[in-house]
């Protein structure tokens, strides 16, 4: 909290041309995965600073927090009927999409800003999934695949939008909780906070946190990657040892 106040003071003294300044902070920049990790929650704190010349706004502020996980190359396939059987025919490639994507807002996103603005600035789950850089356009044929990706990811809790995800503690201070399910992969997570007032973007900040494996989990991963032959032989040896052990334990004579 003290660091936050210091930061605020620093920004205050710099007094940029913009009327409002946004200061954000994460509860944790490095989330460690150990053997009993079952998902976690990251809190985002933010404060809005208004410089001396600016008069108070008539409308309240709105905040949108967007979190993007590590990138994945995905293929979405659709089963179709071919004669008596159902097989994968159509497919759509998504060359670089976030493995985890969540959007937290202070109220329903439709009320915060216009459709055009959302599409241009990639605000909201809908706008991100339907943007041109998400996957190639194919005259509307890509639409069901985008919807399927969003639906399947949402079922796993990896893509979500929460219109009550950001809470204002005072008119100028807010807080949001980012839920990370256990299936969210290790890697770098970008946190993008956008401040709105009266449908206009006032300020934007960008920060990130890292989800990393530690201790035993990390070592197993390193050994499996760098000494793969030794790792394979070790696993085989363990398997044979347990097999032998069981045959000794259960020996009847």
């Amino acid at each position, binding site marked *: 909290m003290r660091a936050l106040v210091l930061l605020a003071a620093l920004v205050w003294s710099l007094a940029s041309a913009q009327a409002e300044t946004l200061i954000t902070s994460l509860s944790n920049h490095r989330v460690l995965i150990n053997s009993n990790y079952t998902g976690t929650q990251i809190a985002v704190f933010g404060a809005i600073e208004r410089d001396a010349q600016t008069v108070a706004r008539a409308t309240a502020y709105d905040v949108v927090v967007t979190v993007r996980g590590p990138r994945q190359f995905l*293929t979405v396939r659709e089963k179709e009927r071919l004669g008596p059987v159902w097989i994968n025919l159509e497919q759509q*490639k998504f060359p670089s999409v976030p493995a985890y994507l969540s959007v937290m807002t202070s109220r329903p996103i439709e009320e915060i800003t216009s459709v055009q603005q959302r599409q241009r600035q990639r605000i909201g789950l809908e706008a991100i999934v339907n943007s041109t850089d998400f996957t190639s356009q194919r005259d509307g044929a890509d639409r069901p695949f985008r919807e399927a990706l969003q639906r399947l990811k949402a079922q796993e809790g990896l893509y979500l939008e929460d219109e009550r995800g950001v809470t204002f503690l005072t008119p100028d201070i807010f807080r949001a909780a980012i839920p990370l399910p*256990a299936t969210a992969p290790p890697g770098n997570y970008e946190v993008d906070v956008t401040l709105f007032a009266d449908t206009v973007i006032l300020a934007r900040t960008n920060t990130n946190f890292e989800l990393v494996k530690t201790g035993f989990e990390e070592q197993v991963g390193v050994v499996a990657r760098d000494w793969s032959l030794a790792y394979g032989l070790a696993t085989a040896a363990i398997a044979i040892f347990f097999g032998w052990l069981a045959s000794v334990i259960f020996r009847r004579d």
Partner: protein
Amino acid sequence: MQIYLPIAEMPVSVLLILGMGAAVGFISGLFGIGGGFLMTPLLIFLGIPPAVAVATQSAQIVASSTTSVLGALRRNALDHKLGAILVAGGLVGSALGVWFFAAARRAGQLDLVIVISYVTLFTVVGSLMLKESIREFWHRRKGGAVRLRRRAGEHAPYLGWPLRMRFYRSKLYVSVIPIIGLSLFIGFAGALLGIGGGFIVVPALLYIFRVPTTVVVGTSQLQIVCTTLVALILHAVTNQAVDMVLAILLIVGGVFGAQFGARMGRHLRAELFRFLLALLLLAVGLRFGLELVLQPEEPFSISVQEVRT
């Protein structure tokens, strides 16, 4: 109780995995099969990435089969000579299978090849065995002698081909050519489908070569240990998809299950044994068949090509 899997990168319930290992181990010990065709779909159903599921369950097969082989050795219920030929042919067949696997993947229809192979293999092998065991039951009902022991001159013609070899333990004197053919086919199918091939070896030895039931299980397990061991190390080196934590959980559950399965298998009547195995294979074949024919609830599926870091 949850535990985080370092390679699969997700937590699982320890008790659930132990239980699954025990259940599949029981079936594996009972019938002398690896059980990979049961474990892989179960793991994928839990949300474990398919590559990790296929690679890791092979460690469990190695463990439970080692126990079976050691038990069979002690009871002298294993034909070394027959086993060695099956292993040698199986390894050559595996190499061919791996090559065909890559070719089908390039063509983009690997899923289809796998599902159709599963359906055909399981349905054909299952229904042949079912027919056979129903006939046995029928004979018994009519009071006729159950034809378990072979009589002179009763062999199928291909068993009398050149290069005949004597297998004392299996009470066999047959040509090696059909045996090598069988082992090549098993290695091929095993590499293609990610299975040990025990469910093909067992019925083939039982029905084609008429090897005694007691020897069949031990010999098929010997073949499974060797091919799966090679597969496990190959998976670890090429795909880095073997999850040691998951493997140990499956093994601990599996070895206990396999023990009870093997013990029960010894008390099972031979006809009942074949009948149950036939039912199991048919059920699995039918399940894959339905998946192919029924309209899927969710026609779309996501597959991860690579993770960009």
